[in-house]
């Protein structure tokens, strides 16, 4: 059964990755990142059960904490950028080049 | 008494002192630099007097642990070869300081004849501080007996020189400085790889040179490591075809920096070949000797021919140096005692001879505001002392007997001839080419009707005479009596060649009565 969870996790991770790559709305990009993090959590939980210890769950817990922190900061940045540029598209913030 | 540490420490402290002098008091900075360099010279002489040529190979040895986990230590000591080169550096630095007295004030500006002295763009104080730092590095690189320490000095030397060229040089200084730095770094990094590999393969947990002799036995490993070291030294020396950085660097560098660059810094290359390539990798050295000798001979002839065609006086001198470095490399890799002694002596003599040429060229350029040979003409009539000094310096460049370079060139050629006849004969043709490039340059600049542009050129002033007098005196004295230097060099060269374990070529018909005697 673990394999099923892992495959599901991989699928979600890939979908999240593609979302990061193709979407331009910064908020949606963030959502995709969250999706990738969640898929990892699923794998952690599955492994936790497989190995019979709680470390995996703990790890998932910490991932959630960090993800929460990341979202907070990230969204704050998006708001700041939006305030100056009137846009939430990641492609608009492209000055850091060459 | 830790002589060598003191020798390195004094200029570093002096440099700090000079750097701390408040802005606007350039005169004080110059005086302090001169004082420090003279102290270093005095200390060096005091040390050299105590050197015992027939004693241990490495003397004044010091060793302090530096990075124990890699067996890196701050190990310094001198043998005869290193000693003479350190003395060379110590003598040249005060001369360069004195020679840069005025030039440094205008560093970084394009001199224009007729125009009022342009406003200085760079601080002269920093220049002199860099000079002292460079002196410490030069002493360190020759004194290092720890291969890693040698590498550190080898690379660190670039830094002050980079700034001296890049900040105080001619119109194309940044191109020249970057070229110089990149070339040297390229070689240096190859050497770093080889140094690390040497440490790993030798597996002795030390970088101390004496303990590493004979540590590498596998001939293939030797060949690779040899190449790593050799290319670094060949770039530094510079050997054909790694030479093109030198004309640019020397032509753009301020006079003082050019003197030290060609006079001392480049000697690190040939010194490294003699010290490290030969002794650490004897088999590889023998294997590569024909190739290196070919390159050296090409360099001799090629450098001379290209020198003939130069129209910029400093570039011309740089190309003559490429030719002369060919001679030194030839002497090192001929692997006979005569050639080895000759090559070492050549390093010293070439230091003085090129220094004299660059210094006088610098005086001329300072007066005329141009490096182009065609911008001069008939200077001898106007400034006979200047012209005479230039002629002596030039003649030492073409190895005229009676001047010091002759002894070394003769030794190199005769020593090479013992083993390799054809390269020696081709190299001897370089003597003719040397006459052409020196005398033609002299003719174009000094002879003929006096050019309008030099009609008001002043002759050498007191300071300039004092700059040139010691150099020319050394050139002449060593030309007639090189014995003191040779006596110091000979045992060290003998040691080196013993490590390489080459057999000396024997004469076909050894003169029976007194092999060494000349008519006794």
């Amino acid at each position, binding site marked *: 059964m673990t394999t099923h969870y892992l495959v599901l996790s991989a699928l*979600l991770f890939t*979908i999240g990755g593609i979302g990061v790559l193709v979407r331009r709305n910064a908020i949606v990009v963030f959502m995709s990142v969250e999706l990738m993090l969640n898929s990892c*959590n699923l794998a952690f939980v599955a492994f936790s059960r*497989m190995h019979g210890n709680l470390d995996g769950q703990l790890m998932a817990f910490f991932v959630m904490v960090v993800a929460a922190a990341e979202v907070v900061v990230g969204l704050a940045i998006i*708001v700041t950028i939006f305030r100056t540029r009137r846009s939430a598209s990641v492609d608009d913030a492209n000055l850091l080049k060459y | 008494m830790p002589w060598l540490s003191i020798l390195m420490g004094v200029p570093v402290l002096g440099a700090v002192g000079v750097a701390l002098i408040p802005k606007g008091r350039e005169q004080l900075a110059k005086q302090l630099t001169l004082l420090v360099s003279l102290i270093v010279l005095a200390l060096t002489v005091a040390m050299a007097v105590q050197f015992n040529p027939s004693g241990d190979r490495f003397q004044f040895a010091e060793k302090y642990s530096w990075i124990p986990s890699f067996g890196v230590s701050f190990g310094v000591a001198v043998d005869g070869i290193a000693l003479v080169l350190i003395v060379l550096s110590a003598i040249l630095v005060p001369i360069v300081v004195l020679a840069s007295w005025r030039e440094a004030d205008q560093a970084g500006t394009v001199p224009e004849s007729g125009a009022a002295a342009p406003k200085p763009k760079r601080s002269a104080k920093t220049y002199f501080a860099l000079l002292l730092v460079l002196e410490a590095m030069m002493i360190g690189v020759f004194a290092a007996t720890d291969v890693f320490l040698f590498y550190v000095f080898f690379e660190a030397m670039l830094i002050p020189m980079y700034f001296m060229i890049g900040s105080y040089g001619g119109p194309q200084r940044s191109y020249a400085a970057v070229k110089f730095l990149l070339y040297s770094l390229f070689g240096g990094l190859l050497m770093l790889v080889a140094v690390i590999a040497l440490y790993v393969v030798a597996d002795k947990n030390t970088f101390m040179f004496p303990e590493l002799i004979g540590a590498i036995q596998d001939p293939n490993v030797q060949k690779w490591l040899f190449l790593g070291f050799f290319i670094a030294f060949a770039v530094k020396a510079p050997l054909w075809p790694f030479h093109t950085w030198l004309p640019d660097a020397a032509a753009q560098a301020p006079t003082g920096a050019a003197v030290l660059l060609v006079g001392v810094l480049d000697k690190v290359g040939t010194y490294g070949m003699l010290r490290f390539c030969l002794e650490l990798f004897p088999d590889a050295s023998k294997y590569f000797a024909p190739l290196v000798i070919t390159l050296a001979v090409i360099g001799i002839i090629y450098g001379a021919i290209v020198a003939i065609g130069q129209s910029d006086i400093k570039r011309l001198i740089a190309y003559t140096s490429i030719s002369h470095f060919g001679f030194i490399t030839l002497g090192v890799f001929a692997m006979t005692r005569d050639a080895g002694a000759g090559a070492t002596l050549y390093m010293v003599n070439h230091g003085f001879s090129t220094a004299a040429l660059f210094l006088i060229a610098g005086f001329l350029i300072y007066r005329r505001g141009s490096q182009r040979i065609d911008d001069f003409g008939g200077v001898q009539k106007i400034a006979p002392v200047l012209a005479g000094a230039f002629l002596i310096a030039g003649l030492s460049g073409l190895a005229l007997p009676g001047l010091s370079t002759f002894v070394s060139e003769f030794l190199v050629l005769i020593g090479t001839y013992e083993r390799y006849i054809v390269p020696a004969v081709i190299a001897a043709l370089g003597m003719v080419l040397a006459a052409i490039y020196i005398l033609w340059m002299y003719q174009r600049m000094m002879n003929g009707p006096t050019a309008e542009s030099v009609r008001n050129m002043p002759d050498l002033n007191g300071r300039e005479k004092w700059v040139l007098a010691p150099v020319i005196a050394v050139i002449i004295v060593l030309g007639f009596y090189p014995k003191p230097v040779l006596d110091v060099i000979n045992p060290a060269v003998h040691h080196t060649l013993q490590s390489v374990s080459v057999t000396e070529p024997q004469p076909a018909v050894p003169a029976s009565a007194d092999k060494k005697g000349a008519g006794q």
Partner: protein
Amino acid sequence: MGEAITFWVLAVVSVTAALGMVFSRRAVYSALMLAVVMLSLAVLYAVQDAPFLAVVQVIVYTGAVLMLFLFVLMLVGVDSSDSLVETIKGQRFYAAIAGLGFAALLGLAIGNVALGAPKGLAEVTKAGNVPAVAELIFTRYVFAFEVASALLITAALAAMVLAHRERLRAKPTQKDLSRDRFLTDNPAGLPGPGTYARHNAIDMPALLPDGSVSPLSVSPVIARHESGAVVRPTDPEMVKSYVAAARERDAEEESMSLTREAEAETPGGEKEEK
């Protein structure tokens, strides 16, 4: 058997929702789709003997994080949507290739590994899941836990700092404000919105005595917003006048900038002529 059914149902749901999240044009839809995925995952956690995590997932993610997303979406514009034109050349193509490749590789890897039957967590959660997790958190992972808390506090501070609008000059006093006002052309202030208005909304322009729209009476931000594709005011007459006013203003601005440029150029030209 029950787990299998749950899994298959939720797997289909979550993958569909994830795809929907990625490919829906509207950000709000994406957020809602993400909520579906997260809730599905929460259930899957619960199925796998992780009730604590399931609850945390619901509370923290679906409850807090997603709400945050929605709030930000509100700030940015709920109805904002991406254009479908991809501007970076080949981005989608390579994304597809890389995504497929990645999925294939992971599948290959997972498929190739023979995983034993799950041991189950009964052993380690004799006292129940939550106490067991709590014990671990406060014993072995206490340091990480504390660091995480520090991280959260830092993140909260960071969010405040970032979202905070920096004041570049001293706060104007009442005196400053009044001085500024009297230095303008309209010391009495612009006409209030809706002087002759039929609505009292902020985006309704004032009408001049002749019945035409006063362009000065509407904030440019709102005007531009209104002149866009999505215009909601229902009075067609008003809509027309808004659009006309906005166009007029744009044209005016353009001509103004042109004149400025021309002015900037002429002095140099004169000099050259002289």
